[in-house]
């Protein structure tokens, strides 16, 4: 009898745990990056897969071949010479919201966040921290975040084009 009781309590506990966590996702988030020195070097990916959970976990995945440039020739160089997208087809970020306590997923509003995690790209993993906002509207989050990537941190030798790129992430979750 005691065992059954503990078992039931256990189930109840697990149940509330599962319910406490809510996950939002998108298959078509957006990442744009641009060179601060050359305005032609600008690219957008509209097929960013991302999940954000109200326990603070956040992931982004972007396929390198999904980055589109205005000029086809640049797109080719970006894929073949710089990011080597046949060898490293995807960039992944896995991290957490550092100041989760300040975000209320259940209440509409705009919340400033700091996100910290590992970005893997071109076969290199680096820990990065970025500032952004999470806007809850009608119960659905919109995440915006800007940060800078130094190409050589990821073993990308693009110094003839640009040393850094400004990255802009925008994901509307369902």
């Amino acid at each position, binding site marked *: 009898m005691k065992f059954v009781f503990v078992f039931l309590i256990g189930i109840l506990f697990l149940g509330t745990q599962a319910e406490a966590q809510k996950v939002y996702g998108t*298959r078509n988030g957006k990442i744009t990056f641009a060179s601060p020195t050359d305005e032609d070097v600008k690219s957008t990916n*509209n097929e960013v897969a991302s999940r954000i959970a109200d326990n603070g976990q956040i992931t982004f*995945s972007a396929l390198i*071949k999904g980055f589109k440039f205005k000029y*086809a*020739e640049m797109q080719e160089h970006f894929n073949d010479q710089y990011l080597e997208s*046949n060898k490293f*087809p*995807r960039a992944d970020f896995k991290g957490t919201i550092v100041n989760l306590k300040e975000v209320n997923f259940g209440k509409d509003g705009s919340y400033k966040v700091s996100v910290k995690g590992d970005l893997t790209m071109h076969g290199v993993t680096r820990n990065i921290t970025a500032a952004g906002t999470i806007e809850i509207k009608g119960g659905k989050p919109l995440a915006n975040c800007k940060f800078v990537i130094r190409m050589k941190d990821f073993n990308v030798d693009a110094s003839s084009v640009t040393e850094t790129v400004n990255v802009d992430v925008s994901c509307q979750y369902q």
Partner: protein
Amino acid sequence: MQKWKKTILIIGGIGLLAALAVVLYVFLKPHRDVSKEKGVQLTAQALFDAFKTNEAEANTRYLDKAIELNGEVADVNTNQDGHIVVNVKTNDPLFMINCTFKTNPGTLQPGQTITFKGICTGYIPDMNVVINEGVLVK
């Protein structure tokens, strides 16, 4: 005009033309037009299976290739820049073939079977296989 001046002018002229050609090549080279390419034909399910079984091998077979897929529409959305996105079903309810269309495919209903062509940009585990530059075949 002296002969050497003429030579310099001619060489300079050729140099300028060559520089112009390089600039034109970089800036005017057209993007791929998948509607003019013959796509590798397969079902949405077969493409999903290939990536799920062996991502590396599927990448060598399908990455950056024009492919023509047949499958059932799960849902139709617009992305954050206003382009039409069609998710096509696989046997895994959480996994889709995610196709962003280049040209408007017209009104599509969930449950409808379609054939479309596009460029495969790769695989995102637990989420989808991504196709972009999509055009509706039928």
